[in-house]
């Protein structure tokens, strides 16, 4: 009974305590700081409404000058439910569904603001701080860039400040709240916690597979898609976004050999090229052409296609798995695509070996029979190809004739082709003659098929820019080319190269006419701005590789590098606990050391008191320094001068007027020297 009551007495104020204006205001500041990083990823009305609700409450918090004691203004509790239901319906209307990541994040964002409108008690405040913690995490669903990480930091510090304000209101001591002190304290606490955070980040075991399913609306990012219709790649080419980065083990192949093979499309409906519904694995290894080995860091793109230089020699060695983490495997299909068993949902690193070859033997002689479909429409192109075929019966000569048609006639390579509505190939070849790589590849493949030569479209990337020791391949490097089955071998033909040879030699920037809209970084002029951009990219690459991409496999690799692999998990846990203990000792010790430095006189005095107590002369609690020094001098007259000096200098340091720094140093030196004069307690005890 007694114990329980005493615990009650020790407790701070109950959780139903009404919050004051200052606490509510700081909670508002915290919420805004937690909302801001999330706002850009939300529908505009959600972003604005959430912020506005918080600001409205902050605005009406101003104390009524006529009723200073009145509780802070708020909305009645029952309206919380009304607001929440209205917000849920509005979110449902905006997204078209409710159960999913994006609507949930939007709902949480707006719910926090509504809760803040109604907040009254200390318990509500705790809930708000917890919700703010959650809000800090949600922007990382959308972006894990360095900017996103830095954007979260102010809110982390403000969480500390909000907790400090709440603790201050419950404190038994009466002290005025100083925002500066609270901010500094919170920042110091965060900085002191960083070593532990780092330790946890490196050593905390990651999940091999998710505990529950990933949300279905995991965002579809830009990149090559599962089909190709006119205009798709040219749109992609306006993007500076990074598709993947490559480190070559040896020499970097020349630009004209850097065809990064991606999705292969064999079916054509007259407008859109699409792939086979499933990839047939193939174990044969074409063995001609120089071998290159390299490591690709692929940005998450939610697709299963990996990219490899033509032609991939063997399935890649995965260094870090995809987000879903299940037993991920990569295969090479019969049409020489590298496919992953699951979509790539986080940065993926893999090592790949390729033969630099522009042709390879077909898996079976009958393969070509299925690849002659012409789709609907485009009668003029088909008729033209058939007529040409009658004139030129040889396959190679026929292909050369078509390429020369593209080269010699007035075809324009452009990022802004007109929109081809019906019979797109006919319109492109015979009317407008303006197109991007997909138009050329599509027309070329259709003409070959019309002439009875099996052909298919390959999409991927072409080129890439070297930055320091690695290569960046951007979405603007997206490309489409053609493969034709000639004499039992699939042979690469790039009709775009016939129109704009420099596209393949030096990239998009060299191939387009002046005045074309061009992604900024694809331009060739090496201004300082480009260099800054590239340095930034290098940094982002490291960030991606070492922070975002730090998953289970990279963790294992790091442990191996640190020679931790022979140890059992419990030994590693012990090691981490030891490091955490060292951290705690350093932090506590650092606190003591800092204070000791501030209070050197006091420390010296305390030490002397301990020594004299051991020598048989403890200081009475009521005894001042001078009185105690007198008593000690009387007890040991041979040290009377030292004791007098000690008593007077300590009294001056501790209780005198604030001395000038130099004077203070002199007093401290006197105190220290006088104490050093005294013999150790054992000798002192014997002396009289």
């Amino acid at each position, binding site marked *: 009974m*007694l114990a329980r009551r005493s615990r009650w007495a*020790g407790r701070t104020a109950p959780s139903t305590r009404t919050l004051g204006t200052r606490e509510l205001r700081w909670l508002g500041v915290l919420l805004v700081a937690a909302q801001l990083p999330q706002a850009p990823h939300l529908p505009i009305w959600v972003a604005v409404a959430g912020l506005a609700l918080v600001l409205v409450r902050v605005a009406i918090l101003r104390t009524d000058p006529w009723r200073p004691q009145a509780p802070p203004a708020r909305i009645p509790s029952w309206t919380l439910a009304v607001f929440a239901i209205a917000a849920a319906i509005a979110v449902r209307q905006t997204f078209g569904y409710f159960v999913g990541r994006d609507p949930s994040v939007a709902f949480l964002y707006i719910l926090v603001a509504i809760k803040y409108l109604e907040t009254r008690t200390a318990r509500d405040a705790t809930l708000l701080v*917890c919700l703010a913690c959650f809000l800090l995490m949600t922007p990382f669903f959308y972006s894990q860039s360095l900017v996103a990480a830095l954007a979260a930091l102010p809110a982390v510090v403000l969480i*500390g400040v909000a907790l400090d304000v709440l*603790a201050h209101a419950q404190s038994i001591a009466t002290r005025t709240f100083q925002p500066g002190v609270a901010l500094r304290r919170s920042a110091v606490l965060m900085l002191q*916690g960083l070593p532990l955070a780092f330790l946890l980040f490196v050593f905390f075991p990651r999940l091999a597979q998710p505990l529950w399913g990933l949300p279905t609306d995991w965002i579809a990012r830009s990149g090559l898609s599962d089909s190709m219709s006119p205009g798709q790649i040219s749109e992609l080419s306006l993007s500076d976004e990074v598709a993947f980065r490559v480190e070559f083990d040896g020499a970097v192949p020349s630009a004209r050999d850097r065809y990064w093979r991606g999705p292969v499309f064999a079916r054509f409906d007259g407008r859109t090229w699409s792939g086979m519904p499933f990839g047939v694995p193939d174990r044969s290894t074409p063995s001609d052409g120089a071998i290159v080995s390299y490591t690709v860091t692929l940005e998450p793109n939610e697709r299963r296609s990996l990219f490899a230089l033509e032609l991939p020699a063997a399935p890649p060695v995965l260094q870090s798995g995809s987000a879903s983490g299940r037993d991920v495997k990569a295969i090479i299909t019969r049409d020489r695509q590298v496919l992953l068993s699951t979509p790539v949902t986080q940065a993926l690193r893999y090592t790949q070996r390729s033969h630099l070859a522009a042709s390879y033997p077909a898996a079976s002689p009958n393969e070509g029979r299925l690849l002659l479909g012409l789709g609907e429409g485009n009668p003029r192109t088909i008729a033209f190809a058939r007529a040409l075929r009658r004139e030129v019966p040889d396959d190679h000569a026929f292909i050369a004739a078509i390429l020369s048609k593209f080269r010699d006639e007035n075809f324009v390579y452009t990022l802004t082709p007109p929109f081809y509505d019906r019979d797109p190939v006919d319109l492109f070849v015979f009317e407008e003659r303006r197109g991007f790589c997909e138009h050329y590849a599509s027309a070329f493949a259709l003409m070959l098929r019309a002439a009875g030569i099996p052909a298919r479209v390959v999409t991927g990337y072409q080129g890439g820019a070297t930055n320091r020791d690695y290569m960046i391949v951007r979405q603007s490097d997206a490309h489409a080319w053609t493969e034709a089955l000639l004499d039992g071998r699939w042979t690469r033909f790039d009709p775009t190269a016939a129109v704009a040879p420099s596209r393949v030699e030096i990239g998009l920037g060299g191939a387009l006419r002046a005045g074309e809209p061009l992604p900024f970084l694809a331009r060739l002029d090496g201004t300082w701005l480009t260099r800054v951009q590239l340095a930034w990219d290098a940094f982002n690459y490291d960030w991606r590789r070492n922070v975002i991409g730090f998953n289970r496999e990279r963790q294992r690799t790091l442990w191996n590098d640190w020679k931790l692999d022979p140890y059992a998990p419990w030994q590693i846990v012990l090691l981490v606990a030891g490091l955490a203990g060292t951290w705690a000792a350093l932090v506590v010790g650092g*606190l003591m050391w800092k204070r000791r430095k501030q209070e050197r006189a006091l420390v010296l005095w305390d030490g002397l008191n301990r020594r004299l107590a051991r020598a048989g002369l403890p200081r009475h609690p009521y005894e001042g320094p001078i009185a105690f020094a007198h008593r000690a001098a009387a007890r040991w007259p041979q040290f009377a001068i030292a004791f007098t000096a000690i008593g007077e200098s300590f009294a001056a340091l501790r209780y005198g007027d604030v001395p000038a720094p130099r004077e203070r140093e002199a007093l401290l030196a006197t105190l220290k020297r006088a104490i050093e004069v005294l013999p150790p307690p054992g000798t002192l005890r014997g002396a009289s």
Partner: protein
Amino acid sequence: MPAARSTAARASWFARWRERALREAPNDVGPIVLRHSRIYLLPTRRGWAIIGTLAMMLVGSLNYSLALGLGVTFVLAGLVAATQLHAFRNLAGLTVAPLAAGEAFAGGTLAFTLALHAGTAARHDISVASATARAGGNVEAGTVLTTTLEVPVPRRGRVALGRVTLSSAFPLGLWRAWSYVHFPLAGLVFPAAEMNPPPLPAGEGGHDGLTRGASDETDLVGLRTFQRGDPPQRVAWKAVARGAGWFSKEFDATGGGGTVTLAWERLPAALPVEARLARLTAWTLAAERAARRFALRLPGTSLPAAQGREQRIAALTALALYPAQPDAPPARKASRRVSRGRNAP
């Protein structure tokens, strides 16, 4: 037999452990420095809420492979852990010394004074709480904070302070660090004086202000403000008539008044024990106020006639410690607790 002994040993080991952990006996003597063995740390309710939130964020980040989600979770976890160290450091090295226990009448508050020596570090928001009282504040580095616990005391007797909990939720209110100290500090609670008691018994020899009447001018020492209950014959009617206000005449009883004997056995037989004590207390105070010699006779205790502060305290102490009746459990419990503590080896 060995089994019994080992059981006993285990029991005593457990008792020692329990005593060390909970400090249920008043065994702390002199100033106590709070060290790690005495300091406990647990999250507050808000701390638990934050820790739970961080756990959920951790699971979510792991599930979705959000590296930065893990990052922000761990940074917050580092902040919470640093807060724990600061909470520990806030109490560690603080020195608590018992200063004094006061006196009080039942129904009032008994003041216990403790001194908190900060040592070399500033201490924030130190709460000092006994079972029924709470005090505290900040202690600046190198200073001493004297805190007084005003313990409400409903009953007479010797009242021990009991175990005191020093606690603080500094810096962010996420962790509560606390320590128990249990000093053998006890104060005396005198019985509450009876309201409107009968007048003092007649003195032996000399005269009594009431019995002699108000006409004896020789012993008049002065006037004091009229209080309700003063007999009409003492009212200074002349002053009232002058319109100066209401005053009562005061008589110097020492010269003429003899020793009063406040005797238990002379009280009406029907009066219950606590009522007797209350009346005797009221008379003691009245005798002291009237500056008269008095003797006190209780069953088993007898104070010879004397006068002055010492006599009053001796009489009140005897009344406070008069063997208590079963209807006064807290006082008895407290006094037994103290004696047990003292007799412990």
